[in-house]
């Protein structure tokens, strides 16, 4: 009888067994990309302290579903992979906001470069450039790889608007984050946004190669960047 019991129970052990693992080769389709709306070059407007400011938003850039309180604008655009879209944010702080270096260190931490004494050999910080409304400093920073969903690069512009009695009235931050390929593909878009930043009503700056809302086309020349 015991033998019969064993025969009855034995198949149950088989049920608990799994497949032998094997090396596999397969082909897969990449994911269908996010359905980016086909937006045209447009002008954005934001009101700060009773004054309206405008800038031009490059084609294909969309507004984020929600803009965090600390930001004035938040745009998204197609990245080089579906794992990491590009992001452009605009924010403002009264005064000089600690100056350029303090913000460079802050951004370096955001891309996981910590405990450093200054920008690295690949990083670029331009000389301040007059863009009409104030002086813009263009910055490009390289960070550490933290996985496919995390940005490794930041391209930014710090625009300091002078106060009437001297000093800095406001500091505006235009910050683009993504991976290498995304940043390379959208650098001119960011430059266009910064170069067209002005109070509403002030005529659009005439700059060679700047795209226009009416006609489209044209290219923005390489922005001035210096090795720091």
């Amino acid at each position: 009888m015991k033998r019969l019991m064993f025969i009855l129970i034995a198949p149950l052990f088989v049920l608990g067994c799994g497949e032998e693992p094997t090396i596999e080769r397969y082909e897969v389709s990449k994911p269908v990309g996010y359905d980016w709306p086909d937006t045209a070059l447009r002008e954005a407007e934001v009101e700060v302290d009773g004054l309206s400011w405008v800038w031009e938003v490059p084609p294909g850039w969309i507004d984020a579903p929600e803009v965090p309180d600390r930001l004035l604008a938040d745009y998204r655009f197609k990245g080089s992979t579906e794992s990491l879209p590009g992001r452009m944010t605009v924010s403002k702080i009264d005064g000089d906001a600690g100056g350029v270096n303090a913000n460079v260190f802050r951004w370096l931490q955001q891309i996981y470069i910590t405990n450093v004494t200054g920008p690295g050999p690949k990083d670029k910080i331009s000389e301040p450039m007059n863009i009409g409304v104030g002086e813009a400093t263009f910055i490009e920073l390289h960070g550490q790889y933290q996985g496919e969903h995390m940005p490794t690069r930041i391209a930014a512009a710090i625009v300091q608007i002078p106060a009437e009695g001297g000093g800095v009235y406001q500091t505006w931050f235009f910050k683009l984050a993504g991976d290498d390929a995304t940043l390379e593909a959208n650098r001119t878009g960011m430059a266009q946004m910064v170069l067209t930043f002005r109070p509403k009503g002030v005529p659009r700056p005439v700059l060679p190669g700047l795209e226009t809302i009416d006609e489209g086309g044209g290219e923005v020349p390489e922005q001035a960047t210096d090795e720091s």
Partner: protein
Amino acid sequence: MKLSKDNPLTWLASLRLTVVLLAMSMYLIFVGTLAQVELGIWQVVEKYFRSSFVYVPFDVFRSLLYPGSEETWAYGHWFPGGFLIIGLLLVNLLAAHALRYKVTGKGNMLWLGYGLVLAGTSVTAYTVLEPKTSATIQQDVIVMMLIWAVPMTLIGVGCHYIFGSRKAGIVLIHAGIILMLVGEYITGIGATEGQMWIHEQGASNTIRDIREAEIAFVRDLGDGKEEHIVIPQAIIESAGENDEPITDTTVPVKVRVDRWMANTEKVSVDFEDGDRTQLLWTMKEKDAATGTEMDVDQPSVVVTLFDGEKRLGEYLLSTVGTVRPIQLELDGQTWEVSLRFKETHVPYTLQLVDFRHDKFTGTTTPMNYSSTLHLDAPESGESRDAFIKMNQPLRYDQKAFFQSGFFQQSALNRNLGTVLQVADNPGAWVPYLSCVVVTVGLCMHFVVSLLRYERRANASA
């Protein structure tokens, strides 16, 4: 049929065996519950319930008898695992039916009974096997009840004609229990779980099983396609233990596993050529994750790759996200080689339109997590929006996509995207169905018993 006491079928069908097995299952659940003090739920499920035998360390009782004691207890005992007990219960129940439950129907009524049971079973099978109906049933309990009301009535009436009014209810109750036992086998063997990470305005068709790793060789084929060659964790571990390189012709290089580390943490050692963006990582081995915290095992492996007899180099591959995949140039083709969590690719894409992490006003206490998604299935031409929040999963392709969490850019404390838990359980419908069958059986048995009692009361009055 009257069987002797010595007949094995009599022994297998005995109620004593049922009671012993139920007592054993209670003990197993008890020690399994205690084991969760030290182990995560998945480890316990695999070790105690989805096994034929389990070694129960006496240490599991420490937290109950001497809470706070740090001293580990030695020894333990072997005990039948969940699969073995369930299997024996199944045999016990089937043997009891073979012995004690006889067909009492006769003639046309018997055939009518068979026909009704067959019709009810067919309709029920269709509702659980047809993907859209199955998804609808699992989404809404009321709809499930309404859809199953007709087939269950047919089965109930059919059993009545086959087994007679006294036994029909009990037969249905047993059928429901058998279904539940079989369902656990289906779940134990066939169910898979994984995670899908999607960045806001990003898209994914990849599900990752964070309990198993694989070495992957990936190359771009153009036209939006990729080739993947994957070496499962079991083969990597075996190659490491046996000191035998992996020389499968499917893999573009020979892989020698120098060191397999089941769970690791990163230690940065240096910058590559003084470039601080290119950190050289080393990995420190650490104890396996117990599953009681958020941690999961993050395996790493040191491999030496050979192109034929030519040594290409020694590489550290790791599931730790900071270690970049390596690039290999072989015969004019670029391969990306990485150690990653086991991936499954689905023939459709989920795009994340918006992720929300709502908090109670003035607090950091989460009120709700939700994801607005767009589903794009080129093969079926389906393209629609979907909304997932806690306890409201998306059911598609026989899978359930649950809102599980989110990932952040830690330096900014900013949410970047959503993490979905993807459960693929071919037996997901079984517990629902078995409960309904048992309920119908209990109702029938109750009504029949009530009527019989009433008749007796009237007769004696």
